[in-house]
């Protein structure tokens, strides 16, 4: 057998075991070697205990799937073996913390995998290391993993240095020593795997979707982010917080989501690029203000990171069921909804969202999901130079002799927006219906003939911006990727993008040709162009991480096209290519099986 150039590994333990940092050591080693990594983080909404695991796919090409069966596994906590050993690929390798996991117990689970227990205390004592803490087992197991995968241990040592230097030389040395113990022990005591993981030696970025969204917003000119913590959107707040001083940003954790979005609207009105972000439950509290941004024509970006619902639901699991929510609000108002598909897209779409918000003076919803936001992935590069900041009709002077009209009727329905603070253009931003000046028309004049006429015009002016975005080409139809003659078309949105790529590869191996229609712009949807694409497709199957087909309902409502075959998953785990292929096969057998599960 030729040496394999990719691998799937898993690191598992309890919350508090340092699974994340072990993952970081391994991920950074790979990414610095120029390898690609995709890491899926499975954890619970609990601070200590429980089961936390990180599954990583590693290889020279971009990884789109964290895979099903891990080939190498690191186990930390005594509750880990029964959960994870059954998942290991036959013939695979399990390293475990011998201080917490009993040899007999783990080995009794199955016999077709190789077990290696590492005893931190014994090995450290033997090496005469002092001040060793039991949590440092994670550095030792990282050493085992790096050796087994035949990765470059020097790169890991370098990263350890970088990471621990602020804690002092001694700490670095100790960690190096422990890493080496694991590394050398493994070299000496284990069967080598025939792996040949070769990177291109150009260091990649290894980051989460939330990091990419935060960076995209900042690259796109964000100056103001107000939020209230809510998983899985909190990472954006955490990331941009770190840049507050260096990049002169206003980053505010405020008292609730009602405050967060209204702070952002206040900021947007003042004339800075502002955003907020939350999960579905918090977004519910923002829906009223979203309508205010629509009515007041205030640029605003709201990031909505979906998690398992309804209600508090399943905070640390994926679901894609919030399109109805993003379409909500009282009355009709224009908006734009965009769903990035992968890490690069998180970056670029976030910047685009800010541009669209300001160009059309309306609320933009950037919709992500737990997997997309919380998983880590390598990215070759993020090209900041591609980002052009377009502020639309924002004016900082008003020299006209005419009285300024904030909501002036114009040819393209977009009114010049004078920044508050400018002499001579005083005006109101207002949540009531109003005339061109922003005087309210909903009060003492409501129902009078001129107010009725104004209402008809002003409401239509706002709503026409939806079509304008399409006409200007600022809204894109879905993309059709793959062979246009394929028998099967998968329809997806959000993070499911990548898994379809894996599924297509698997299917291709089996001789089934599939292609892929992916929706990034969720509202509006350019109808004619989209229908033309559907026309090209044969058997259309949606793949959504939900039970009730959120995207299909949106497509039907917006285009009249109904998708009737669905693959769904709502157990909270992301798809994998294998999962999709299996579901497809089941479909031909019992069609409605899943829905009646």
């Amino acid at each position, binding site marked *: 057998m030729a040496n394999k150039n990719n691998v799937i590994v898993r690191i598992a333990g309890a919350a508090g075991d340092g699974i994340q940092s072990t993952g970081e050591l391994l991920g950074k080693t790979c990414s610095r070697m120029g390898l690609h990594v995709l890491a899926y983080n499975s954890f619970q909404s609990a601070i200590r205990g429980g089961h936390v695991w990180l599954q990583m796919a590693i290889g020279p090409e971009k990884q789109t799937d964290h895979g099903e069966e891990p080939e190498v596994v690191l186990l930390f906590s005594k509750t880990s073996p029964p959960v994870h050993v059954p998942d290991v690929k036959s013939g695979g390798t399990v390293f475990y913390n011998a201080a917490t996991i009993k040899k007999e117990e783990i080995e009794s689970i199955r016999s077709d995998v190789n077990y290696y227990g590492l005893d931190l205390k014994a090995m450290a004592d033997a090496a005469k290391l002092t001040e060793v803490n039991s949590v440092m087992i994670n550095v030792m197991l990282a050493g085992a993993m790096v050796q087994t995968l035949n990765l470059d241990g020097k790169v890991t040592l370098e990263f350890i240095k970088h990471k621990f230097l602020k804690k002092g030389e001694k700490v670095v040395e100790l960690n190096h020593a422990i890493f080496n113990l694991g590394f050398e022990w493994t070299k000496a005591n284990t069967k080598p795997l025939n792996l040949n993981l070769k990177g291109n030696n150009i260091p990649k970025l290894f980051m989460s979707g939330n990091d990419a969204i935060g960076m995209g917003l900042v690259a796109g000119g964000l*100056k*103001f982010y107000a939020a209230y913590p809510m998983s899985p959107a909190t990472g954006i707040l955490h990331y941009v917080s770190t840049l507050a001083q260096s990049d*002169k940003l*206003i980053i505010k954790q405020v008292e609730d989501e009602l405050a967060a979005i209204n702070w952002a609207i*206040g900021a947007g009105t003042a004339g800075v690029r502002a955003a907020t972000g939350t999960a579905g439950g918090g977004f519910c509290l923002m829906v009223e203000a979203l309508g205010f941004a629509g009515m007041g024509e205030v640029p605003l970006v709201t990031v909505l990171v979906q998690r398992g619902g309804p209600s508090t639901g399943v905070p640390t699991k994926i679901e894609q069921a919030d399109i109805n929510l993003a379409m909500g609000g009282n009355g009709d108002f224009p908006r734009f909804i965009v769903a990035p598909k992968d890490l690069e897209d998180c970056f670029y779409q976030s910047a685009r969202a800010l541009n669209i918000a300001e160009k059309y003076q309306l609320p933009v919803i950037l919709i992500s999901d737990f997997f997309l936001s919380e998983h880590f992935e390598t990215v070759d590069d993020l090209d900041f130079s591609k980002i052009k900041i377009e502020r639309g009709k924002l004016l900082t002077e008003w020299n006209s002799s005419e009285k300024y009209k904030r909501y002036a009727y114009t040819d393209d329905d977009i009114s010049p927006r004078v920044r508050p603070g400018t*002499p001579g253009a005083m005006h109101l931003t207002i949540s009531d219906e109003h005339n061109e000046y922003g005087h309210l028309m909903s009060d003492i004049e409501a129902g009078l003939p001129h107010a009725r006429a104004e209402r008809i015009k002003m409401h239509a002016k706002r709503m026409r911006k939806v079509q304008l975005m399409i006409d200007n080409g600022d809204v894109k139809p879905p993309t059709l990727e793959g062979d246009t003659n394929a028998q099967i078309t998968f329809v997806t949105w959000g993070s499911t993008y990548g898994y379809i790529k894996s599924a297509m590869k698997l299917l291709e191996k089996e001789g089934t040709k599939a292609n892929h229609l992916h929706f990034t712009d969720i509202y509006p949807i350019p109808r004619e162009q989209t229908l033309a694409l559907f026309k090209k497709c044969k058997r259309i199957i949606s793949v959504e991480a939900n039970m009730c087909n959120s995207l299909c309902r949106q497509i039907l409502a917006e285009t009249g096209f109904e998708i009737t075959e669905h693959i769904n998953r709502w157990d909270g785990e992301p798809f994998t290519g294998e999962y999709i292929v299996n579901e497809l096969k089941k479909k031909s057998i019992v069609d409605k099986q899943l829905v009646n599960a």
Partner: protein
Amino acid sequence: MTANIIDRKERPALDPKDFKGDVHPDWCPGCGDFGVLNCLQRVFAELGIPKHEIAVISGIGCSSNLPGFINTYGMHTLHGRSLPNAQGFKLSHHDMTVVAVGGDGDGYGIGVGHFIHALRRNMDLTYIVMNNSIYGLTTGQTSPTSAIGMKTKSTPFGNPEAPLNPITLALGSGASFVARAFTGNPKQVVEIYKAAIKHKGFAIIDTFSPCVTFNKVNTAKYYKDNTYDLNAAGHDTSNIEAAFTLAIKDTYGTDRIACGIFYQSERPCYEESEKNTLSTPVVDHQLGISPERAKELKATFQ
């Protein structure tokens, strides 16, 4: 106080008429809110703040219509959300004078959570609550400051809830400037509003502004007869315990109601914590990331 945080040097007075809005107030004749509007226009004029450097930001209610009647920048936001909008606005353009206004329902009812947090945050803002102890715009329901037993459309058998005391609430929440005024005494209103705007930090002025249409209890006459000037009475505004002792009397309903400045302290305003970012107003910052900085940002993930 650093120079970059808004600076209140004396400026030549302007004409109050300058601040007259395009739209004539639609309040009922005799509504207390006219008094607040007039005083506010006078205060801006006397302080000499150019109208384009002011933003008046409200929620929803009769009183919250005020920004429509004054010739400054402004926002007429959602019910209960004047303070979040005002704080977002202020931090983005901190050299403007921002005044939040609204009703007792807006500020002490649906909006009271934001109020509490704004008080402890202590941003350099002025907040005027036109307190009429009733929901005016929705035609007369009980408000958080309605007296126990008051009959309204939503409490036909009498309001069962003890009213909230805005002064003790503010004192208990870390406020740095707490005052009460009554529109029937415009001289005092003007004085207090001026002091509030000059105060470097969050200033709350609970302003009795009688609703002539729906509140037949808390009338102008009632306040005329039942208020007194606490500052004239020699209260020490730096003593928070004394301020609390004075204000809690309202709750017992035995003494006359004190108006004036209850408390003022000079703790740093919120903007101080953002000195670095606010070295110039955020609206004037250049947007986006330089190529060099982009490299640094990316490097942290390598």
